[in-house]
């Protein structure tokens, strides 16, 4: 017989534990969760988990999160309690000591199908006092494509195996049949079984620690501390809000396109209100769900809101106390931020997730200017899969690659270069030497991309260019999950955009093709070379106010070219002896050029867009001028004008960039 301890309806006004016991238990909860993470990192099979796409949490008896791992991936933040509550709803009193549950259901607050959670109830004296949970990204979870990222999916049935709450251990007995059913629906059943064991065992580490605390401090004290740890976090946030202005702030960010509706950016509208009682968001004016898999379920939209907000409260521990202080209205089901069953949602991470986060960065930049930050590059995944002809077995291979990129410029310094995506700043990029062993893809370059940073008084961080060539393989296709080929990474406070995302096939040859930022199953042959950049961050502040000396340093390091120094910053620099890093700033020419840019730039943003497109097609204006000067959005391969997108993007640039220029 089990009994679920319910969260008190009214929170206690003050702490009941003495300060030492509280601090000791709060820290011990953190240790118990970090121990789980530590173990999973050392025993996992999925290379995605190994690259730190996982999280761990201790939840209380009602499923609320007491403590989340200090190194957890941001994208799981604020979803673990939904998954735990789903288990509670499903099984109620039918939960026993020695059970372990699996769940990955994005329609029950999960992220996407690849992220599989294992949840172990912790019992003391015959009743549940909490749950230990570990969520990790499996390399494959079935569905139409290897890696389970089917860009073309519009419903979930082709995306992969949906795991509603299910028991994999019952009263300490491993349920072979159930586990086998789960892993048999993936492309690498043995690996999946390895991760299933590794994750289940990791939750036992947390259970052991919590039971040790119960033995030492008593059950009631530990249970009280679980609640007080949440109250503590809520109190910290509310206390910090007291020092901040009240009001309402709004912004809009965009997905590139909804293929079901034709050309035009897809708005995600974010309204933030601070009224002294908490932090309130409203996303309900956002667009309907799109006809690709770039939709968010309610779990991940909440996660984006929490993670975006948390960036401005970096010291605050993550638990349900934080989620209590932050409320979000995400509107009716069926929208791009609340997609609901059976909309495809696996690509949420490249879609609404980071749009919400960056939009939130922009809003809070106005409230806390000392933590301000422009837009960061977009999360991207390139998948190349086929038969590996390097050995006679011709095994299936999957080159599944993601890149670091640039974060936005800040109010006191440039953006961070070559950094993991904001959706998970701990998500490590894979070493090329490891990838080359595993797949017949030769990396041709992995380098910082010159001029990829959005110009500004403080420029964005730099993005990266990564190229690959298919070697000994056959039956190979390539898919890409990204965005911001059109809704290009933007600047704020007068800063300029960076560069568009998108994959190029055989660039600079007769067979050159721009494949865009989202595509599926493009066949490729041995010898084909593909390359794509990750965007730099957007700029912060007017680039004409950047000092020529700072621009010069960027030229010496090859972050900015001499041509773009003139075009973007109006700084004229002459090479004296590049071999000795010897350049000269031409002060008078710089002054003259800056004056000229100031006089012209508002006009450039209103120039006839079709005329700009025509000049791009004939090669008399380059891509960066089209974007940064004219705010015009094209199909970057053909040069075709995207009229609606251009109108929307120009509005965005007027608001974020031009409105802040002195002249």
């Amino acid at each position, binding site marked *: 017989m089990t009994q679920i301890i319910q969260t008190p309806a009214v929170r206690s006004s003050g702490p009941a534990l003495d*300060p030492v016991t509280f601090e000791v238990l709060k820290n011990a909860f953190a240790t118990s969760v970090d121990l789980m993470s530590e173990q999973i990192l050392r025993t996992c099979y999925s290379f995605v988990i190994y690259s730190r796409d996982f999280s761990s949490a201790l939840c209380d008896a009602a499923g609320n999160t007491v403590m989340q791992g200090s190194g957890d991936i941001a994208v799981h933040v604020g979803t673990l309690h939904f998954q735990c509550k789903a288990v509670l709803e499903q099984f109620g009193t039918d939960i026993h000591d020695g059970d372990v549950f699996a769940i990955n259901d994005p329609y029950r607050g999960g992220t996407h199908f690849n992220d599989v959670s294992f949840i172990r109830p912790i019992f003391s004296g015959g009743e549940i006092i909490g749950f230990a949970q570990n969520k990790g990204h499996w390399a494959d979870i079935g569905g139409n494509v290897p890696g389970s990222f089917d860009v073309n999916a519009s419903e979930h049935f082709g995306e992969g195996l949906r795991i509603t709450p299910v028991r994999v251990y019952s009263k300490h007995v491993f349920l072979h049949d159930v586990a086998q059913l789960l892993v048999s629906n993936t492309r690498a059943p043995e690996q999946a079984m390895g991760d299933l064991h590794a994750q289940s065992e990791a939750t036992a580490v947390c259970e052991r620690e919590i039971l040790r605390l119960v033995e030492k*401090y008593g059950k009631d004290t530990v249970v009280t501390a679980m609640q007080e740890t949440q109250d503590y976090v809520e109190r910290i946030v509310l206390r910090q809000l007291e020092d901040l202005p009240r009001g309402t702030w709004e912004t809009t960010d965009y997905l590139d396109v909804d293929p079901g509706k034709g050309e035009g950016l897809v708005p995600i509208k974010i309204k933030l209100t601070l009224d002294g009682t908490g932090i309130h968001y409203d996303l309900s004016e956002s667009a309907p769900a799109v006809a690709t898999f770039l939709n968010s379920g309610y779990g991940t939209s909440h996660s984006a809101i929490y993670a975006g907000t948390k960036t401005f409260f970096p010291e605050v521990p993550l638990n349900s106390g934080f989620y209590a202080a932050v409320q979000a209205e995400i509107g009716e089901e069926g929208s791009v931020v609340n997609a609901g069953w059976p909309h495809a949602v696996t690509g949420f991470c490249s879609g609404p997730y980071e749009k919400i986060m960056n939009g939130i960065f922009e809003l809070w930049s106005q409230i806390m200017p000392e933590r301000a930050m422009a837009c960061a590059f977009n999360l991207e995944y390139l998948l190349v899969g086929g038969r590996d002809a390097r050995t006679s077995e011709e095994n299936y291979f999957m080159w599944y690659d993601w890149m670091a990129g640039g974060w936005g410029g800040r109010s006191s310094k440039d953006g961070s270069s070559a950094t993991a995506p904001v959706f998970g700043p701990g998500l490590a990029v894979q070493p090329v030497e490891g990838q080359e062993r595993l797949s017949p893809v030769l990396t041709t370059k992995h380098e910082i991309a010159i001029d990829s940073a959005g110009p500004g008084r403080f420029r964005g961080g730099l993005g990266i260019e990564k190229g690959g060539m298919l070697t000994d393989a056959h039956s190979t296709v390539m898919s890409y999950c990204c965005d911001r080929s059109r809704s290009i990474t933007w600047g704020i406070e007068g800063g300029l955009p960076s560069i568009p995302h998108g994959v190029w096939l055989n660039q600079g040859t007769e067979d050159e093709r721009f494949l865009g930022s989202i595509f599926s199953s493009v066949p490729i042959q041995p010898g084909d070379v593909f390359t794509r950049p990750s965007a730099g961050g957007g700029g912060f502040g007017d680039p004409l106010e950047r000092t020529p000396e700072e621009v010069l340093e960027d030229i*010496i390091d090859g972050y900015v070219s001499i041509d773009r120094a003139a075009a973007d910053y109006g700084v004229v620099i002459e090479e004296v002896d590049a071999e000795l*890093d010897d350049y000269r700033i031409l002060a008078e020419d710089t002054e003259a050029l800056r004056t000229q840019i100031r006089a012209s730039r508002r006009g450039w943003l209103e120039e006839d867009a079709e005329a700009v497109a025509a000049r791009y097609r004939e090669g008399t204006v380059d891509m960066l001028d089209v974007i940064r000067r004219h705010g015009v959005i094209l199909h970057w391969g053909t040069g075709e004008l995207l009229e609606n997108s251009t109108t929307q993007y120009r509005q965005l640039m007027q608001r974020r960039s031009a409105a802040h220029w002195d002249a």
Partner: protein
Amino acid sequence: MANLRVAVDVGGTFTDVCIFDDETQSMRVTKVPSTPHDPMEAVMSGVRRAEVNLADVSLFSHGTTVATNALITRRFPKAAMVTTRGFRDAIEIGDGTKDDLWDAYNDVSGPYIRRRDRFEVTERTDYAGNIITELDETEARQLAALLRKRGVTTVAVCFLNSYANPANEIRMREILEEELPDTAISASAEILPEIFEHDRFNTTVSNAVLAPLVTGYVDRLATELKAGGYAGDLLLLHSGGGSMTPRMVKRYPVRLAASGIAAGAIAAKHVAAQCGFENAVGLDMGGTSTDICLVSGGELRITKEWQVEYGHPIVFPSIEVLTIGAGGGSLAHLDIAGSLRNGPQSAGAAPGPACYNTGGEAPTNCDANVAMNRLGTTLAGGARELDRSLSLEAIDRVIGKPLGMSTEQAAHAIVQVANANMADAVRLVSIRRGYDPRDFALIAFGGAGALHGAEVARELSIPTVVVPANPGVTSALGCLLVDIRHDLSLMYNAPANQVDPKDVEAEFAALEKEATARLRHEGVADEDAMLQREISMRYAGQWRSLAVPMGQGPGALQQAVQTFHQQHEKEFAFSQEDQPVEIYQLGLSAIGKTPKPGFVPATELTADPGAPASRREVYFGADGWVDTPVYERSLLPAGATFEGPAIIDQLDSTTVVPPHTTAEIDGWGNIRIHLHNLENSSEG
């Protein structure tokens, strides 16, 4: 005649000189202030202060922070990196991760060599070691000329996949050596032939930027010692817990990067062995931080995941030490939600704890100990007087009043939180390896370790605490105790059940040949040489590997696979014996035994501690204020046994023996504290 062994450990504040006299079997210690502008000054002045005639020294060993400090302050010579076309940013991109996941203004520091000093050449080797593109030698020579023009004095050569075939990289090194004879060259496959470009490149780059400086320092010191009459080899303590002579420091200066941290861990291991403990936790608590290390089965844990700064890995094997921000000077405070916190901010030397009366107004752990009378008001034999009233005032103002606690309750609360934080850190290093801290002894040292050791042990249910004879200078003792050691490795990716054991044996034999050559180069006699094999394995599909000992002969591999299953079960609570096991890497430690001091225990034991030097009221939480004897450590005879509470004062440290414990001075001069009633021990 040469009868002295001298060990010098350079720390941030003090340089400790530890002298062991083989004739009298006695040890003495001298402390002099460190001289950061040139650490050698303090080394030599310490030697003079100790009145050591260098001609009487049989062995001179040295733990130095020269390399660590250079990496932190980034005072590097003009360095360059040469790499495969398309990959010059490998050390700037790294793995892309942030250390601070949430503070968007807290960035990872930049690479050790800036982009402007990183150059590319045309060449390429594939994953299997096939050369796809030969090194373009014309380009290589042009690049050499450019480096000369730029005045580069040290170069890291880092080619992609050179771990699989170093030919192109070695050719590049040869060309640079021809063209730039006075320049130090570090080639990645020769520094560390391991897979993963960021790890290998960064280790090589670290080696390159340190080469001129560290080599110069070591050479100068060796010359100075020789001039003073020292006839032996200077031994430099390295991160792996062994030492090297200047001859090998020239090739692998980066191995000195954790020289300073290693010494304390080695000393902890020695003290544990002396007391008969196979398993021990070392708790080295200083002014600003605590270093925690783990001895299991008589050996220190070694890690290859190590760095001076986040994002810049140095993947040579290094003693695993967890450093946390808890020290005598750590500040207690209430956060904005009114919760009691301790550290990681520290009052440091300036403004210092409140009781120093040097401007510090916030209460520290030191103040809390003073307030409870655990720490007396006279430090270091009178070198510093503490003002207890300032401690009381600070604790009352910052903690006591806001929380409605008496001053002593508040002081006790501060120390309890500090102790719990240290206990959590010990749990992280032990439990994550599958160890139960209750099977361990706690070796407490450093300036503040003995003040907190017994209560940290109680928090962890550790039954015994050992406080070594000179807790404040224990690290220097560690320097006396190291062997010459080199760690070699080789990538070897293959399923364990498909390889020919003869092939594995041949690879080990090749490593052993190289290792033997290195030891001979160091002047180690063959009878003092010892080689230890290790093999890293994992379940096919796993990402991390686990290293286990490897024997010799036909059954060795099979045995190692069995050991792997057992070790996996022990560390991670599961094993999969039906799953294929994959070999990942072969490792070899080459040890050159150096003669050790022959510590001899006292044979005459006296149980009576004698009369205490004084008595005072000391606060012990639940036990309240207790009339407590204060002993002078130098007067306590070997064998002395007494019940807590007691305070034991000595020049470099104070030991707290709480109530419900028994203290015993062993024959080696260690204080052993045995804790009673561990089970029902919710202290406070």
